[in-house]
């Protein structure tokens, strides 16, 4: 969709003026303009029709939000493309479409998911979950049992699974032929025939290979399907899970247990407390948030994670800024080779972050890393970086200092150049020392220029996933956390990641979204603070 609107923007912009060689104020000839309008209308109509079909398909699939957003976005953008008053916005159509669908929609969808129980086992709506469970068949005890032989239609394509059929022999010796979705056909008793109405008997290796394909398949009439139970036995299946809509109860016909639906938590729960294999997706209100703030199991690790997130962001900014400023002051006075030194100092900042972090991770290896082996040779002791929570945190802040201080060095160098020297002259007249000049003039003036970037850097580090994950994967682990495991150096964003995408664990999208919303709020507050700093919002007037 974005590609087609991308193409239509420049074309629209150009042709709108193609007939208009006279100066801007006079309109292009009416006929050209009308033709152009009609072509545009036609193109948009085609695009809109396509999008509408796609959106409605999504809505029918239960993704009403996504389908609705896509349709609404397309309609709004079509208005922009058709109305002349909105001509300037035509330039932005591709960007607007992208931002609406992939930035704004995900923000609101995150908010929505955070108020639901969407997670593994609760991925489907109630009717979808029931439909999925209805496919679950079981072979009741005492059901008619058969021996089976497999047949294949002569000349069928290699991957055509519908070409298989079974010959079933019941305990009385009666033979029945069962193709797919057809009634059973009686066959004369006796050994299975080599061929039967265009089907050939498979035996030996062919039979074994066929078993791989047909063991999940159903044969015979659709309402009473027959399936393969074992290498030789087949039997008539029955639907295991039957839903009684009137009583809102799910029944397990295999065990006879009843699972009343709990529509508040999205589960089918038996009196014994056992739940059916699939729950369903329901809004659960503030459940995720109250879990986040009140669950005793979560609270301990969460307080630790939050504290570390703030500490990490704070110390990262303070240390990098201090060293960066120090270097900028030292480099402020020219000396031979300054350009080479400056270029060399930028290298850490230029290396792709992942690579630098992994290099540090190697160098800080406890047993064979160069830093620890050297320290042990010199002092007989080296910090247990990846094992001890405190040393792990120190290592991470140190690595971030290494990564970030060149940035502040560059920024501060620029800002120092911009401070008018007359101020220093006045201070000298007043007898200020170098120390006083730094604290009372340089630093305050510098902070005016660099302050917003400090806040931005804090915000960035607040959400710094790369460093945390690549360094120690959040470790060392906090004892008592297992699903998912949380570590002492996990920050909020990696904590969120673990709940949503941790390998092996339960994916709890609802809870992860709730954490994300909390981070949204914190970052939002920080940013408002930053905007007050820069008065950026107020600056957006009609002439900016």
């Amino acid at each position, binding site marked *: 969709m974005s590609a087609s609107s991308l193409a239509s923007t420049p074309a629209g912009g150009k042709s709108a003026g193609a007939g208009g060689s006279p100066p*801007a104020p006079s309109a292009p000839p009416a006929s050209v303009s009308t033709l152009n309008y009609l072509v545009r209308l036609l193109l948009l109509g085609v695009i809109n029709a396509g999008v509408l079909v796609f959106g409605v398909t999504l809505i029918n699939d239960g993704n009403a939000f996504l389908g609705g957003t896509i349709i609404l976005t397309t309609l709004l953008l079509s208005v922009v493309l058709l109305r002349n008053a909105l001509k300037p916005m035509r330039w932005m159509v591709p960007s607007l479409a992208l931002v609406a669908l*992939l930035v704004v929609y995900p923000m609101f969808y995150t908010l929505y998911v955070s108020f639901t129980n969407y997670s593994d086992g609760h991925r489907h709506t109630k009717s979808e979950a029931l439909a999925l469970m209805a496919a679950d068949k079981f072979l009741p005890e005492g059901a008619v049992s058969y021996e089976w032989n497999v047949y294949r239609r002569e000349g069928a394509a290699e991957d055509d699974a519908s070409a298989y059929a079974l010959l079933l022999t019941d305990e009385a010796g009666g033979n029945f032929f069962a193709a797919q979705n057809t009634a059973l056909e009686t066959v004369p008793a006796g050994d299975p025939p080599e061929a039967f109405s265009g089907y050939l008997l498979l035996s030996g290796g062919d039979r074994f290979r066929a078993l791989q394909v047909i063991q999940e398949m159903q044969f015979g009439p659709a309402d009473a399907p027959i399936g393969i139970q074992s290498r030789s036995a087949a039997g008539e299946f029955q639907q295991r899970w039957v839903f009684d809509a009137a009583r809102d109860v799910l029944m397990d016909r295999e065990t006879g247990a009843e699972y009343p639906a709990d529509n508040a938590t999205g589960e089918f729960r038996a009196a014994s407390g056992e739940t059916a294999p699939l729950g369903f997706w329901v809004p659960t209100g503030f459940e995720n948030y109250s879990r986040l703030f009140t669950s005793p199991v979560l609270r301990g690790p969460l307080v630790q994670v939050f504290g570390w997130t703030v500490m990490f962001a704070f110390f990262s900014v303070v240390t990098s800024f201090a060293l960066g400023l120090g270097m900028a002051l030292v480099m402020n006075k020219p000396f031979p080779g300054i350009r080479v030194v400056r270029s060399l100092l930028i290298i850490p900042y230029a290396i792709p972050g992942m690579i630098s972090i992994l290099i540090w991770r*190697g160098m800080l290896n406890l047993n064979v890393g160069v830093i620890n082996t050297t320290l042990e040779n010199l002092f007989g002791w080296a910090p247990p970086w990846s094992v001890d929570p405190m040393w792990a945190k120190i290592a991470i802040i140190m690595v971030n200092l290494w990564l970030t201080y060149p940035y502040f060095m560059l920024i501060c160098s620029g800002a120092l150049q911009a401070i008018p020297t007359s101020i220093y*002259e006045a201070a000298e007249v007043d007898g200020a020392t170098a120390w006083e000049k730094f604290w009372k003039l340089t630093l305050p003036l510098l902070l005016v220029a660099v302050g917003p970037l400090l806040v931005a850097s804090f915000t960035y580090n607040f959400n710094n996933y790369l460093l945390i994950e690549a360094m120690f994967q959040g470790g060392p682990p906090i004892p008592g956390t297992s699903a998912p495991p949380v570590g002492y150096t996990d920050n909020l964003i990696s904590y969120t*990641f673990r709940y949503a995408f941790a390998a092996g664990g339960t994916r709890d999208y609802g809870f992860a979204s709730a954490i994300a919303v909390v981070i949204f709020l914190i970052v939002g507050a920080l940013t408002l603070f930053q905007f007050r700093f820069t008065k950026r*919002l107020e600056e957006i007037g009609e002439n900016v």
Partner: protein
Amino acid sequence: MSENTAAAVSLGTLRRGGVSRPPSVGTILRVVFILVALIFSLFPVIWIISAAFNPSGSMVNQTFIPQNVESLDELLTNFNRLFNDPTVPFWSWMFNSLAVSGITTVLTVAMAAVSAYSFSRFRFSGRRALLVTTLLIQVFPNILAMVAIYLMLLQIGRYIPFFALNTHGGLILVYLAGGMGVNVWLMKGFFDTVPRDIDESALVDGATHWQTFRLLIVPLVTPVLAVVSILVFVGTLNEFLLARIILTDREKWTLMVGLFNFVSAEFTNDWGVFAAGSLIAATPVVLLYISLQRYIVGGLTAGAVKG
């Protein structure tokens, strides 16, 4: 010009004024400070270069200067292993990274430039609201919406396989949207500094807005577009979380995801291979940064932050 001279003069006064201690101590301190910073900054770099050329390839046996190297082939042991190990599709990762970052960069710069031009040159109702929205949106990193983005690609991918999970198309789409806000802002700022007289005279001569943009403004702001391109390119190249969520096949990974997973396995033994790969991947980016540092700083102060 006169300002510069004044600055130079007063810098001189400042220097003379600042010398309250014997000059030699200050100079020595300064040199020590710079040397310590250089060692801190460059040691890991030198160490990884040394590791890349160490034939043993293991962290345990690494020496600062590779030992017992008798032939060029031996010096390149790690590179040979890197290129010939079928479980490490290094060139695929490299190619994926370059392709994803390259396409993202070209499309981002094109779309953002067009949008920024409109914001900079047109006055229309809703402009202020759109600008404020852009500003507010760009402060929320799209990694926070990772769950929603993941689910969205999952849902869309059932119908449009090109943008499904585990495709570069889907990843590029997410990157494009994520960087739009900040880049439109950055470019609008630069476009505002180009005098409007230039395009107004062109418009009076009968040029369309599109012609003005393409033939007048774009050539004028080419250096800016280049800087934004580099920032977008390197930023995309470095992105890890979304690439990790969206791409699941080893063959489709970007370099950062690939290196991370490679290292998670047998790091200390494959240290040399990792070093060789890192060297190949990092060198072009570092050279780009160093050669263009002056322009990049301008872009950085204007608002983009890289960690």
